[in-house]
């Protein structure tokens, strides 16, 4: 048990996924129920021993954030536990009475009323993303019983299968139940990473992902939302979002050097997206406005960029407003505001390049001015998601019935203050003043906003139109954006420290 006070986590005690973006092209994410009970008197000695044997079998494969030198591990894994899973563990590791020290958002989980206020899956009429439909229609039966997610990564398909087989065998031998999250007919219904367009950096819809991330540097005495103190639990110094729990109780000791994962499987309707780009509106006047634009790219590429804030090659609109440029394709150093000599801050003009409701501008508004309720800083999130399902060509406009989308891993130290706050913004662009968003009819994130949830009680007045300013006096308003996404399932996990995993494994 750690007793000395350090200002920054030790990399060797933090699971690798948290501080490193792996580039392994193959991965699979397995969902399990542990043997045991969350109800008093808790798990039986046999169940506790089964849990321990399972974690012991996996422990030597768990990758920490320590530098792996020149040779990447061929295959490796990371482990996350839901609150339900943690509640089944040995009271010698975490006492029952300390469980309530975990943040309420983590304890109650993503299907809870509190979380749904931001995620919006159950908002609006007949929302396909409703938690009851998650996990291929299994809903609460999985959400309420999911204890553990094992994230397996590999350099080759063959090595991935070897490690999957090993984990499944350890699970079976030790009384774990595997949940099958997708349609069982395809790849056994498991969450396998896929490679889109033969390029591991691409995701469905054709965008390049994994560019803009918080620095995750150790704190250097200056408060920042980007340092690893905002993500790794136990180092409140200089963190703006303070991860919890912290203290001397067994929950805080268990959580220290861990990080939360908003695990969210999102189906992407690529055919609907392609259709939209080709035919963005049925309003002839708006279509004419679009066609009259003097563009350096096709209208489709231009629209795709305006919705995201980056061209599909990755170039940010703020740096490459007219066409994608190789030099800017991995650039993350830009802002949305300019302050003039008299101190006046202008964050409106930048919308001529990047619309206010472009996904990347909503998910990280950088220096854009915020309304008072949002506080004084923009929360950040670490993204470690990968695509699943087969590539669909950008010319296809009829759905092929295959499931494809994003296996989203959104890492944070405070699920409410980072993951859910950003989600709320995506569903309802109300975080900046009225010069930027309409107060009465706020828009949504063009890509991520749940259009079914618009103008529900959860997000009153919200509209599904998309405003694209084109010059100082003109803007084009696409009247209605369709839904491109459906939530397939969500889980809140803690990725515990290596030390905690070691205790769970009895090593």
């Amino acid at each position, binding site marked *: 048990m750690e007793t000395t006070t350090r200002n920054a986590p030790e990399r060797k005690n933090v699971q690798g996924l948290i501080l490193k973006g792996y580039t392994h092209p193959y991965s699979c994410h397995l969902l399990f129920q542990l043997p045991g009970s969350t109800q008093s008197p808790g798990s039986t000695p046999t169940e506790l021993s089964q849990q321990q044997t399972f974690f012991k079998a996996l422990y030597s494969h768990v990758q920490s954030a320590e530098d792996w030198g020149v040779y990447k591990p061929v295959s490796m894994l990371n482990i996350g536990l839901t609150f339900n899973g943690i509640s089944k563990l040995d009271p010698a590791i975490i006492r029952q009475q300390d469980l*309530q*020290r975990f*943040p*309420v*958002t983590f304890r109650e989980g993503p*299907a*809870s*009323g*509190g*979380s*749904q*206020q*931001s995620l919006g899956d*159950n908002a609006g009429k007949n929302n396909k993303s*409703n*938690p*009851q439909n998650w996990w291929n229609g299994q809903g609460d039966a999985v959400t309420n019983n999911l204890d553990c997610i094992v994230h397996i990564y590999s350099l080759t398909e063959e090595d991935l299968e070897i490690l999957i087989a090993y984990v499944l065998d350890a699970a079976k031998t030790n009384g774990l139940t595997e949940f099958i999250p997708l349609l069982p007919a395809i790849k056994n219904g498991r969450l396998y990473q896929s490679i889109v367009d033969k390029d591991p950096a691409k995701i469905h819809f054709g965008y390049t992902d994994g560019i803009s991330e918080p620095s995750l540097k150790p704190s250097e005495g200056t408060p920042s939302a980007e340092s690893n103190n905002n993500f790794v639990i136990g180092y*409140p110094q200089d963190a703006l979002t*303070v991860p*919890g*729990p*912290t203290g001397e109780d067994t929950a805080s000791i268990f959580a220290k050097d861990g990080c939360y994962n908003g695990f969210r499987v999102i189906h992407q309707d690529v055919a609907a997206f392609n259709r939209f780009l080709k035919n963005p509106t049925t309003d002839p006047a708006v279509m004419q406005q679009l066609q009259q634009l003097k563009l350096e790219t096709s209208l489709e590429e231009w629209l795709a960029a305006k919705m995201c804030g980056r061209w599909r090659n990755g170039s940010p609109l703020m740096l490459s407003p007219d066409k994608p440029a190789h030099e800017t394709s991995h650039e993350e150093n830009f802002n949305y505001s300019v302050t003039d000599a008299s101190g006046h801050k202008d964050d409106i003009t930048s919308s001529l390049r990047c619309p206010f409701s472009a996904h990347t501008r909503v998910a990280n508004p950088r220096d854009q001015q915020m*309304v*008072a*309720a*949002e*506080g*004084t800083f923009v929360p950040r999130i670490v993204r470690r998601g990968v695509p699943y399902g087969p590539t669909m060509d950008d010319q296809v406009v009829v759905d092929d019935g295959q499931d494809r989308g994003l296996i989203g891993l959104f890492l944070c130290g*405070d699920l*409410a*203050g980072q993951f*859910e*706050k950003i989600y*709320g913004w995506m569903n*309802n662009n*109300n975080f900046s003043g*009225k010069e930027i968003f309409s*107060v*009465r009819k706020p828009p949504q994130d063009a890509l991520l906003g749940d259009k079914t949830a618009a103008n529900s*009680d*959860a*997000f*009153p*007045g919200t509209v599904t139109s998309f405003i694209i300013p084109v010059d100082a006096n003109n803007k084009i308003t696409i009247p209605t954006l369709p839904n491109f996404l459906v939530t397939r399932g969500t889980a809140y996990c803690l990725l515990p420290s290596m030390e905690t995993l070691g205790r769970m494994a009895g090593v």
Partner: protein
Amino acid sequence: MASPLTMYVQIKQDAVSQELAEKAVANFTQGVQAGLDAAEIVHYATLALVPNPATTPGTPASGYMGLLLMTDFDLAMNPYLETFWNAGGGIKTAIQGIALIAYNPVPPINTLTDFQNFINSVNLTPAPTSGNWTNFYQAYNLTVKQINAD
């Protein structure tokens, strides 16, 4: 989006706690006004003393059983409890003060997690898992900002 918060905290019966509860109510508006005005998401907030039951029917009761905070604010509860925590001044102090005189021991409220956990543990109107609240009426679902918009 509205987040109704109906926070009931049973309080200790000793004279000091009872007096502190009276003071909390007397100074409530003054203490929270600036923070709540600035946040522009709170529709109303009221703090009331809940009297002890009378020992015999018809006789006046003495003292207070608890404190009841009723408020309704825009946006999701958990991310925006952070707004009140960080707003500084009156709100944080008021909640910490209430926790100190709570009859049931409350772990110290030193961090945002402690604050969120405490509020949720005493909220009698948590968000329902599906659909709308069955015990919360709103004449309108607009936000404070929407109501105040030109």
